[in-house]
């Protein structure tokens, strides 16, 4: 075990994978000698050479296009998109190519070995071009997997699983936790299962569901609620696609109430899918409407970031409203 922050955990996972499998290659803008603008790929070029860890030209569509071809060839690309906000030029390569490659070829070829890493999320005074949480766009793409860790331990285990998984994975890293989240992480390899939620805390009155950096927000809200005698069950979804409906549904069977928190705008955010599914599956168990505490339907603001955020107070208020319904 070693104390690592989230970046170090990612770096450690990449090193393990590159050591184990010489077909693993890491590339993206500034990931080479410099180690990436957040330093997640520090020392990889130095350790594994320029052929396996390299800067690309500044083109996200090119990075993913290249990665798709490399994956189809049988290599194991781990491509970095510098900010989640800049993944959209690659959207076509992801929606129409990465995700459909295996399907369209009848399983003859695939991009299964591809992992795309990208930092996402706000709370860093980044405004609308350095704060977006685009997971819902990708959740509507059959063929993709989407994974989001909330702490260093998860980050390493889930990233290793993502790289080993034979499906294309979008691995989204909550950048405001890059240095803030610190914890004990095994120095050796380990895998955490994809598609599984993590029950962070058990409780009986209401289920609080979040992922990534928002888990600590709902934890804070839960602490306030507990003071008022409300027992909260907290679930970290971890995988957005496929998502662990079973764990969520079982929890709601028990608590009868569900609150989902995410940073992305409300309309069409992934909370809507969860709410739609859970109202279907738990209709007779629900004691109150499923609450969504999300970002506003605006671009991510700069000056009003604090007001925009689905913070612990908004979550706490929604818990109370749901309890009092």
């Amino acid at each position, binding site marked *: 075990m070693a104390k690592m922050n989230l970046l170090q955990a990612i770096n450690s996972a990449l090193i393990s994978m590159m050591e184990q499998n010489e077909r693993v290659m890491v590339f993206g803008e500034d990931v080479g000698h410099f180690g990436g603008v957040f330093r997640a790929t520090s020392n990889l070029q130095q350790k594994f050479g320029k052929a396996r860890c390299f800067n690309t030209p500044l083109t996200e569509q*090119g990075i993913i*296009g*290249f990665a798709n*071809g490399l994956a189809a060839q049988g290599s194991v690309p781990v491509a970095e998109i510098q900010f989640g906000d800049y993944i959209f030029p690659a959207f076509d390569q992801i929606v129409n190519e990465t995700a459909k*490659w295996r399907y*369209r070829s009848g*399983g003859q070829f695939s991009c299964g070995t591809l992992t795309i890493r990208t930092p996402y999320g706000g709370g860093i005074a980044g405004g609308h071009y350095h704060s977006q949480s685009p997971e819902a766009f990708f959740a509507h793409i059959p063929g993709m*997997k989407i994974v989001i860790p909330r702490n260093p331990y998860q980050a390493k285990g889930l990233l290793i699983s993502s790289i080993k998984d034979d499906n294309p994975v979008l691995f989204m890293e909550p950048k405001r936790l890059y240095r803030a989240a610190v914890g004990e992480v095994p120095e050796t390899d380990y895998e955490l299962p994809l598609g599984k939620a993590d029950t962070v805390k058990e409780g009986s009155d209401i289920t609080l569901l979040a992922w990534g950096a928002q888990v600590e927000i709902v934890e804070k809200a839960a602490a306030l609620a507990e003071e008022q005698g409300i027992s909260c069950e907290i679930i970290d979804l971890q995988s957005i696609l496929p998502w662990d409906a079973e764990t969520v549904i079982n929890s709601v069977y028990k608590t009868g109430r569900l609150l989902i928190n995410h940073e992305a705008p409300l309309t069409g955010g992934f909370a809507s899918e969860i709410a739609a599914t859970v109202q279907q599956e738990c209709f007779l168990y629900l004691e109150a409407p499923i609450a969504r505490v999300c970002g506003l339907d605006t671009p991510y603001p700069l000056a009003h970031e604090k007001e925009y955020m689905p913070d612990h107070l908004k979550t706490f208020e929604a818990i109370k409203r749901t309890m009092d319904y």
Partner: protein
Amino acid sequence: MQDRNHLSHVKLTHKAKVITNGLLDIPMLQLLDETGKPTKDSELPKIDQELAQKILESMHYTRLLDERMIGAQRQGRISFYLASRGEEAATVASAVALDANDMIMSQYREQGALVFRGYTTQQFMNQMFSNQEDPNKGRQMPIHYGDKALNFMTISSPLGTQIPQASGYAYGQKMAGKDAITICYFGEGAASEGDFHAGLNMAAVLNCPCIFFCRNNGYAISTPAEEQFAGDGIASRGIGYGVNTIRVDGNDVLAVYAATQIAREMALEKKCPVLIEAMTYRLSAHSTSDDPTGYRSKEEEQQWAKKDPITRFEAWMQTKGWLDEKAIEAFKDKTRADILNALKVAEKVPVCPIEDIIEDVYDTPPWHLQKQLDELKAHINKYPEHYPKTANRDKKGAN
């Protein structure tokens, strides 16, 4: 740390002079003139009678396949077809220069390359009838072939996407120490996509052993080349990326063959990309959904019909004493019969069973897809007459 100077190679000038169009004239390699005679001083690539025969047959086969399938589409037997008439030299002769291990990533009008590689008539038909014998499992519209055994990547409709992918594929081949390259085909229209830019630039910077083969056939559906770009075709862009470039007469089998051979050798040895622009003309409609009379004249088409690549190659073979017209006629008759036969077989093969609907989305179907399939099957069982293709079948697909 290395000291860098992005200026070190740049010469100075002290007179303001704008570089205007026409600075660069990229000539076109032609080895056979339009009558099939070797052009002055031209050094022809090595080619024996057997290979010449195979090339000619591949071109004829391609054209016959096109003709028959346009007919099949008109008869309503298949939903769509896309012919390559006039471009057979470009697609067949380029494939000739490749090794069987080289990966082909094509756009959609390169059936000639696939024919040369040995895709069978039955395989063509199975794909076009989307039946369960198609290795792509009938998942794509007609003409979106793909065959792992032949190193022919499954075709994808979105234009240009295969270009950066080819760079990545070639990089992977290099890293894996393979003695193979990737060839990437595309049209001059697709070369307007951002993916073209990304793919060529990345290949140049990352030294990918890849041939980018552009079929400049003058049109992207109805859009003529002059509304597609203002520069000197696609070749002039190669210069911009620092990519080795050749322009070739796309209707000249020998020139295409020679250019692709040179390109392949260069790509493999120097681990670098090479751009080939083959100047040709789409004699056919864009596809069976298209009607070119809306955007070009019969006269223009006739002008180009005179440059027919098959006729030209036959003329050359004739001068070599290699042309056996009877044998060719026999080959064509047999091909027509084979195609019709295979077509009749393919149209009777059922589509994949319903279980297949959730396959290959992931490596194994996750819970939500399994659930959707279960619901769907129950529904089909309830209304079997409404889903005749899939109802009441065992898993093997027999009705």
